[in-house]
């Protein structure tokens, strides 16, 4: 026993002096998901400290919004999380609608048809967003093919979005009081039937693909070696850092705004909330990169379930836009949050009764989740940093706003 201790101390004494190497990862780097810059302090391959520097994509969203009327802000929310722009539109519209609903003198109700369309489109957009996350995560880990498979399937979704709102990425589809009528779709018309059939055929095509992707990447032993047990974010840490959405569910917290604070018509649908669990026979630990990734894969299935329920019910008749004369919320302030694909998307709006907000803050899920990176990455390797960034699934447009 004594001898071992001696040798151990000797090893420490003989440890050669290694110099710290400071490496700039980004803002132009293949896998920082945009323009994130990480200041890495490396000891060989081991990361002593990874300090994120953000702001390279800052487009003054909040300052802009103070000079724009509420309908004009919606296209700007598209540019926040450009991967799931529908959900961003929706989050903003929900906040404004809630603030307007506080004014009892004007009563308006969002038409049933619009609610259904919103859920339908946003769940499809959630699938598209998670697909991109899956693809880029595969590419970060080094598998190029899943990336193109994900894009292949996402392309079909984009074509669907293109058909309903005329744009592929920045949709500006969901409006305050309803959805856009830019491409009219009469209730019960042949157009509507074709569109729903197209969604149906996509779902039929896509559902088996999820299992295929699980075969290709999720269960791959190299992939699981790379991601399981890496960067474990405990539930307390996730809460403290304000991680939300798939990140917090990956940490084992059973929390989904769609189920726990149902907004819109989510209480009418039957869906599960995937939450990560320890899987000892595989080596997965709650809160590691693999769990966060797996939650996204499972969430796609749940989104498919929701969309299938809408397709089974069919879209209700009626208008798609509430009868709004002007968007002019009463004096007051509101914070409303909704479940975007990356987590809790909150909009804090201060209104003084004019058509323009006095203050608008977008609380983006990625911004909070990214702040945990510094603590998560300590003592890991360079390759693990990439795995973490991919697993918390950041979109820099949303972080920098």
């Amino acid at each position: 026993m004594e001898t071992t201790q001696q040798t151990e101390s000797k090893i420490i004494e003989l440890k050669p002096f290694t110099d710290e190497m400071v490496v700039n990862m980004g803002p132009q780097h293949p896998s920082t998901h945009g323009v994130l810059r990480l200041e890495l302090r490396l000891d060989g391959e081991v990361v002593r400290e990874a300090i994120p520097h953000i702001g390279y994509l800052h487009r003054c969203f909040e300052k802009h919004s103070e000079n724009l009327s509420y309908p004009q802000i919606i296209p700007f929310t598209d540019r926040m999380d450009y991967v799931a722009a529908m959900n961003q539109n929706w989050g903003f519209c929900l906040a404004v609608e809630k603030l307007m609903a506080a004014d009892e003198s004007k009563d308006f109700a969002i038409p049933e048809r619009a609610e259904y369309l919103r859920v339908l489109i946003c769940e499809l957009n959630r699938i598209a967003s998670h697909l991109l996350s899956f693809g880029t995560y595969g590419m970060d880990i080094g598998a190029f093919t899943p990336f193109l498979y994900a894009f292949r399937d996402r392309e079909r979704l984009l074509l669907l979005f293109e058909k309903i709102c005329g744009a592929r990425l920045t949709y500006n589809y969901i409006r305050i009081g309803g959805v856009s009528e830019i491409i009219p779709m009469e209730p019960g018309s042949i157009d509507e039937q074709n569109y729903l059939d197209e969604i149906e055929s996509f779902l039929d095509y896509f559902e088996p693909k999820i299992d295929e992707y699980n075969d290709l990447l999720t269960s791959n032993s190299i992939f699981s070696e790379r991601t399981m047990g890496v960067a474990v974010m405990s539930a307390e840490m996730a809460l403290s850092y304000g991680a939300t959405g798939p990140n917090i569910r990956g940490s084992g917290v059973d929390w989904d705004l769609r189920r726990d604070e149902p907004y819109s018509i989510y209480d009418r649908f039957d869906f599960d909330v995937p939450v990560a669990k320890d899987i000892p026979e595989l080596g997965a630990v709650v809160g590691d990169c693999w769990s966060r990734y797996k939650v996204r894969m499972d969430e796609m299935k749940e989104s498919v379930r929701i969309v299938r329920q809408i397709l089974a019910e069919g879209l209700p008749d009626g208008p798609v836009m509430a009868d709004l004369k002007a968007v002019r919320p009463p004096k007051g302030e509101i914070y409303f949050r909704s479940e975007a694909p990356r987590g809790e998307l909150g909009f804090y709006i201060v209104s003084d009764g004019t058509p323009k907000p006095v203050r608008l803050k977008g609380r983006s899920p990625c911004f909070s989740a990214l702040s945990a990176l510094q603590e998560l990455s300590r003592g890991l390797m360079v390759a693990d940093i990439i795995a973490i960034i991919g697993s918390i699934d950041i979109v820099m447009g949303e972080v920098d706003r």
Partner: protein
Amino acid sequence: MKPEEIYKTLADKFGESILGFDTELAGDPIIQIVPSAIADVCQYLAETDTLAFDSLMCLSGVDLGAKEEELSVVYHLYAMQHRHSVVLKTSMPKTDAHLPSVSHIWKTADWHERETYDLYGILFEGHTDLRRILLPDDWEGYPLRKDYKEPDFYRGMRVPY
């Protein structure tokens, strides 16, 4: 717990540091707090078992306009366990904008406070790393203040496009 009850609890505990309870305006009711007491109140909110506010949803600075020479910081808190939320608001004059940091209570406040400092110039005392986060380090002024005038040039580049 309802916001009223939380307000009563806080008022009992902190007395004069709690300035009032706004329910008139549209939206959520707001508890007004003296800036210097914010960290203590937050600590209390986070650590009391009956309240247990374990997540800070949003932290935002507000400047209501040039007339009111005031900056505000608004805290939206949520308790996962009890499923209740509360809004805290604290206001301070523009010339002397500082208040205690809450980044040791919720780590997410770290970046949110940096952002608020960056855009409003509100100093958070006790924050370990209060730097600009979205804007360049050598940017002058605090853009989200209503009296902000954008500079003509930044490092030789014309700013207003």
